[in-house]
């Protein structure tokens, strides 16, 4: 067991999988000798060399096209899209090609690949480098979507993603890179589609993802001091989605609050809310409350960015609203 940062856990996860399977390769901008702009791939190049760790030009379509073609023909690539905002320049390869090919070919083509990307706000990078776009991915049939909240989960979920026979978008929350947590020694491999209950409480169910998990836990602490005990569920993956864990918690608490970093409209919280409103409506004792970034691009100034993103105070307020 070692304490390590979320950032270092990425490199550890990649290394674990590249050491295990010679078909795993890594490609992206500055991922090699430079160790990645977030320093999340430090050491990988030294260990595996330039053949298996390939620096690329600024050509996101070419990066993902290369990953796709390689995955079709026997490799298991891990591609990096530096900031998840840049998915917009290569969304065609993700949404139209990678996601649809198994289906269109009626199963002839398998695409075991992972696309890692720095996601989300809170680092004062402004509107084009701060988006939380996991819901863009969730909206596309054929993609799996993972977003870990702890260093341990980074390793375990990344390993699961690499070994998964389907294409996985792996969102590394930028605001978590510097956070630390205990990571057990030895190989770690998780299962995709299993949410983690991070805290148990009888009064309400709070569902969060990635950087919103620690905030939801902080809100839970604060609510506890006010006598409100909430369950906090870390979804860990959006596709597959662990509906069972959410629904059974809501059955027990009668209240659901989702906490999303993405802007409101069509966020994953809406999907979770709609599932519960369809399948578990009569379990609810109060409104389903969604706490999200408002439907605005993220501003750059620290004062504004902090005001835009879901805060502990807004989560507390959201839970109180659901309980009224």
């Amino acid at each position, binding site marked *: 067991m070692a304490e390590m940062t979320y950032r270092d856990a990425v490199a550890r996860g990649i290394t674990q999988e590249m050491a295990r399977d010679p078909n795993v390769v890594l490609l992206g901008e500055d991922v090699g000798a430079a160790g990645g702009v977030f320093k999340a791939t430090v050491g990988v190049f030294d260990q595996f060399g330039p053949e298996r760790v390939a620096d690329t*030009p600024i050509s996101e*379509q070419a990066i993902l096209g*290369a990953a796709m073609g390689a995955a*079709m023909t026997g490799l298991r690539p891990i591609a990096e899209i530096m900031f998840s905002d840049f998915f917009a320049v290569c969304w065609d390869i993700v949404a139209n090609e990678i996601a649809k090919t198994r289906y269109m070919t009626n199963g002839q*083509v398998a695409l075991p690949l992972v696309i890692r990307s720095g996601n989300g706000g809170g680092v004062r990078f402004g509107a084009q480098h701060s988006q939380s776009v996991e819901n863009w991915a969730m909206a596309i049939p054929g993609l799996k979507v993972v977003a870990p909240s702890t260093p341990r989960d980074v390793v375990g979920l990344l390993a699961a993603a690499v070994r998964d026979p*389907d294409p996985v978008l792996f969102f590394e929350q930028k605001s978590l890179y510097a956070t630390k947590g205990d990571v057990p020694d030895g190989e770690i491999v998780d299962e995709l589609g299993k949410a983690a209950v991070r805290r148990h409480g009888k009064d309400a169910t709070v569902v969060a993802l990635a950087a919103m998990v620690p905030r939801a836990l902080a809100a839970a602490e604060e609510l506890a001091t006010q006598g409100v005990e909430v369950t906090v569920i870390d979804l860990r993956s959006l596709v597959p*989605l662990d509906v069972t864990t959410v629904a059974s918690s809501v059955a027990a608490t009668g209240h659901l609050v989702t906490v999303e970093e993405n802007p409101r409209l069509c966020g994953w919280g809406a999907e979770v809310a709609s599932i519960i409103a369809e399948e578990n409506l009569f379990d609810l004792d109060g409104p389903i409350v969604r706490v999200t970034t408002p439907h605005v691009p993220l501003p750059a100034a620290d004062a504004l960015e902090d005001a835009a993103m879901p805060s502990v105070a807004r989560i507390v307020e959201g839970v109180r609203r659901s309980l009224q």
Partner: protein
Amino acid sequence: MTTPLAQQLAQQTATRPATPPAAAPAPGTPPVQAPPEAVRLRLYQMMVEMRDFEKRAYDLFLQGLVKGTSHLGLGQEAVAAGFGAAMHPGDYTFATYRGHNHTLARGVQMAPVMAELMGRQSGLMAGKGGSMHLTSVAHGMMGSYAIVGAHLTIANGAAWSSKLRGTSEVAVCFFGDGATNIGAFHEALNLAVVWQLPVVFVCENNRWMEYTPISSVTAVAHPAADRAAAYGLEPLLVDGNDADATYAIASAAIGRARAGGGPSLVEAETYRHGGHSRADPGKYRPEEEVQAWLGRDPIPRYRQRLLDAGIDEAVLVSIEEQSRRAVDAASSAAEASPPPDVSLVGANVWADGGASWRR
């Protein structure tokens, strides 16, 4: 042209350069060094089969049996045939929505292709892909792609994989003149050269996007060849209506790629006889242009050349008859197939075979 591959081809040339003048390559000029007779017969057979197949596809469309859209390769057969014949089993083909010819060129049977166009259970992908997405991995037909430009980047990936795994497959990627103006073209060409990938990019310049002439929207006269230098590549222009010429340049470029010599970009000048897709009569094209190119139809031209080379006409007739029979059989088989079972709607979204996104 003084660069290696062009030189190599020029040395094989009988009386004219391998790359005809862009304007109006004279029909019937002697070919580059003739391939062996067996190859020539195979080229002829492929082209005849493609032609017959496409004509039947059009008839079936008119009868309402081919649904949705389809983009025929009528007139462009010499490109798919020349490259198809030069490829080795195991090599990777990446084609566009105009990919029927390229699919047949890899030895895929006509019946499942026809059934796919008709949306039947026995279709190559059981009707799930349709005409624009023909794929047969078992034949190295790695897919037909309907978003212009994307598959150039994917072909790179297959070539990269071949290189990293240390095997010898070459990827051949076909696309149109219009595709040279989209960003993915640029990204793919640059990366292929930087990584020295075993990939051959083949631009089939048929002079038209959908309804717009390529010359009106392109900064250079030869949309692919005039861009080669931007990637450190030599310009390679070939008469795309001459199967011997396409076969020669294909063999050279694929051979170079297989030998570790890196990528090539070939521009094959050709023409589509019909409209862009489906019922488009293609009336926006000047009649003289259409007539001039119909006069350069790759198939009668090649037939005459084979006769001139002393091949017995009976051999050609037998190829032609066989082809007609094969198309008849394929369309009967396809018509006899039921529509796909609706359970296929939810099949193969994921590797577990299904469509469930929840646990």
